């Protein structure tokens, strides 16, 4: 019995050691080396003393917040109403379907849609608003990021709502709760875990969408991800890149702590 347990856990434990723990240790290790390979604390000193890096970090967090809020606002009602439709599994599949279209293709589509002569601008002109520069703006970055993240927010929320026992809703209604009360006192609290999972799934990637800042944001928005990509693949300064990476990891831990499952009290 014990031996069987040990045997099948090998691949998973190996994965944990090699691809979860080792890379994390290595990125922290790398952050203490400068571009010529000497051990140093300079990367952290530079990060904390230079306004550019700190401003970039705050900016990145702010944009991720905006993207997450927009995505949640659109996704919760969608998931809620989707769960009440007939053939809901089919509809859900249709929500997931766009995620199977590569993210880069979707970004590419928006290059066309938002371009100077693209459909949004022609639509605006038709109503007499005139053409605007849409591509390479902060707004276009937020919209496209939200567009890409929506299915990842809908899915966990939908699952949480779908797992609700109908008897709870019936009980709430039998006891005289209005629709709104049932929603705010029963449905929403019970699906909060789905919301948290969705926020996790959207907020953290939003900090690192460097391809969108390049293709759609026109390098005006510099996220933490853009900075890391720049340091690793362009300037080859892995040490500074890793330092920003460590900052991003700290942000990630903070988010996990804030949205993680709390220990359930009582009972």
């Amino acid at each position, binding site marked *: 019995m014990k031996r069987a347990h040990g045997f099948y856990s090998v691949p998973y434990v190996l994965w944990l050691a090699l691809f979860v723990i080792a890379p*994390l240790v290595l990125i922290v290790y790398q952050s203490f080396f400068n571009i010529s390979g000497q051990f140093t604390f300079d990367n952290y000193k530079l990060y904390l003393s230079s306004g550019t890096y700190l401003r970039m970090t705050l900016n990145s967090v702010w944009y991720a917040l905006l993207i997450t809020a927009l995505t949640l606002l659109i996704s919760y009602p969608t998931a809620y109403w989707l769960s009440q439709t007939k053939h809901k599994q089919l509809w859900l599949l249709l929500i997931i379907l766009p995620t199977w279209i590569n993210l880069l293709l979707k970004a590419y589509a928006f290059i066309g849609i938002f371009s100077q002569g693209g459909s949004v601008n022609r639509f605006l002109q038709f109503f007499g608003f005139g053409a605007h520069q849409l591509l390479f703006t902060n707004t276009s970055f937020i919209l496209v990021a939200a567009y890409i993240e929506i299915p990842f927010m809908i899915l966990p929320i939908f699952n949480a709502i779908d797992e609700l026992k109908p008897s709870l809703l019936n009980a709430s209604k039998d006891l005289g709760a209005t629709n709104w009360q049932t929603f705010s006192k029963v449905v929403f609290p019970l699906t909060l875990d789905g919301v948290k999972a969705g926020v996790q799934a959207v907020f953290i990637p939003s900090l690192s969408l460097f391809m969108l800042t390049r293709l759609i944001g026109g390098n005006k928005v510099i996220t933490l991800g853009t900075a890391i990509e720049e340091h*690793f693949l362009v300037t080859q300064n892995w040490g500074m890149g890793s330092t920003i990476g460590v900052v991003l990891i700290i942000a990630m831990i903070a988010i996990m702590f804030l949205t993680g499952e709390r220990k359930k009290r009582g009972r």
Partner: protein
Amino acid sequence: MKRFRWQNIYLALVFLVLYIPIFYLIFYSFSQGHNMNHFSGFTWAHYQELFQDQRMIEIVLDTLLVALLSSLLATIIGLLGALVIHRVKKPMWKNTLLSLNNILMVSPDVIIGASFLIFFTFLGFKLGFGSVLLSHIAFSIPIVVLMVLPKLNEMNTSLVDAARDLGATQPQVFSRVVLPYIAPGIFAGFFMAFTYSLDDFAVTFFVTGNGFETLAVEIYARARQGISLEINALSALMFLFSLVLVAGYYVLNQYNSSKKGRKRRMEANHNR
């Protein structure tokens, strides 16, 4: 009745927003022009161009191969991982394992990419197909665990006990009782893993080196140079491919649930 219609309008709008960019791409793949601004006459030219693009076809096949292999292997390892976590009874250990499992789920792509790049370089592992495949397996495992684990948790332990009492061996309990019960979770995990792999750009971008490319990396390179309607033709074909896959998945699901439904109905009759 009125509320019902508002909901449907909202849902229709969401679907519209989700699908307009995709159909926009497909629409212009048939245009004779060279940009996505004006539709100037119908043509198959971009598809012909695509099918003669040997390099692109190779990249598409490579991408599919990586997605299929990585999601299969990730499903196996993830399933084992879910069983391991399910077995652990001490809450502290269980939480530790779950937190470790979730690290790659919540890690930003760039962190995964950058840290894997350091990892492969540190080991002297050659960047290319192998490093991309390993990376995709690695970041797909946690989603499989998360899809399978709830099924394991909701499974009634008396089912397993009953099977053991009736003399089933450990492998029999697993293959006849546990596996059928958690199968929907495994399928969901596999499809999520497949989705992750197809959708990934950032991690691949970091660990791919020079010799090997996936579709996303290639599209990124081309999109930075501007619009080419060959990419539109490609996205139309990929969309068709996704439709076929989703239809298959749906039929499979329907089949499973109707079988379950029939069984339940039989049980109900029996009880009567």
